[in-house]
């Protein structure tokens, strides 16, 4: 998961073995809306995801613990942290979310990792570290 895919070299398969791995999975997602001028705050996004969980998995699913660590309002890109046991539920409900306020939408899952994504090449802004104050923690 390091910068293995630099321009001159083709991407290399790399096996990462984690000892004492954290219980979390990190997901980087992007929301694609039909009307691109729609503004969505971080709270709106979390509420939207929870409503999707509520639809697919009911009240038990809506009680799933996940955090919105980072959110870029212009690009509609977000970083979610979820316990590994809830990853499948969260991911499937994101997939089945099809409309936001009567306009079609879709979630693109850009990256899923067991390690914090800020240390990975595709992160929102690579300077941020895990404990930087710019985190939202919703």
């Amino acid at each position, binding site marked *: 998961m390091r910068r293995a895919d630099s321009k001159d070299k083709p991407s290399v398969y790399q096996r990462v073995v984690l000892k004492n791995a954290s219980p979390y999975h990190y997901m980087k997602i992007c929301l694609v809306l039909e009307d691109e001028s729609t503004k969505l705050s971080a709270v709106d996004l979390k509420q939207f995801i929870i409503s999707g969980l*509520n639809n*697919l998995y*009911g*009240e*038990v*699913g809506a009680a799933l613990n996940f955090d919105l660590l980072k959110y870029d309002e212009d690009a509609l890109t977000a970083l979610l942290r979820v316990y590994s046991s809830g990853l499948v539920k969260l991911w499937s409900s994101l997939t089945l979310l099809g409309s936001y306020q009567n306009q079609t939408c879709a979630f693109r899952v850009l990256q899923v990792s067991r390690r914090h994504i800020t240390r990975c090449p595709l992160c929102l802004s690579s300077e941020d570290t895990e404990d930087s104050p710019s985190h939202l923690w919703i």
Partner: protein
Amino acid sequence: MVRVKSRYLLCEVHVTDRSRLLLLDDRAVALAVKAAVARTHGDYGAALCSIRFSVKYLNAHTGIVFLRFPKRCYKLLWSALPFITCIETRGQKIPCFLNCLHVGGTIRTCQKFLIRYNTQQLHRMLPKCKNEEEKQEVQKAILNCTLTRGNQEAFEDEFESDEEDEEE
């Protein structure tokens, strides 16, 4: 040989007014279970509940229900049962809750358990009889209980007349 496996939940319907138990029918119970599952587990639960879920048996007199769930997901569906607070039947809402007594792999094991359970209950209740006469009466009534065809029809007639009383 391989067979499709299910789990049978033997549940007891608790109501405050026991005479209203007679209003229950299996479709109403099935609807209540499906609604509770849909509320607690959403579309996913509702879909699981639509495969091979059925109310196998309902005794409106004692409030005993057999529910059949697929073995693969019976725990998930079971977890929704405590959220049933009322069953709607014939335009009436009966406040109740389901108490699960036994989980079995076949109807036969559930029936065996039910017979044993009822015997236990009887032994618990018999000492509460006020006098010997009452005790004798109960014992006689039990001995008279045989399921022959003729008897059953008489029983059904009685059941129908009971219902009419309720409607009046």
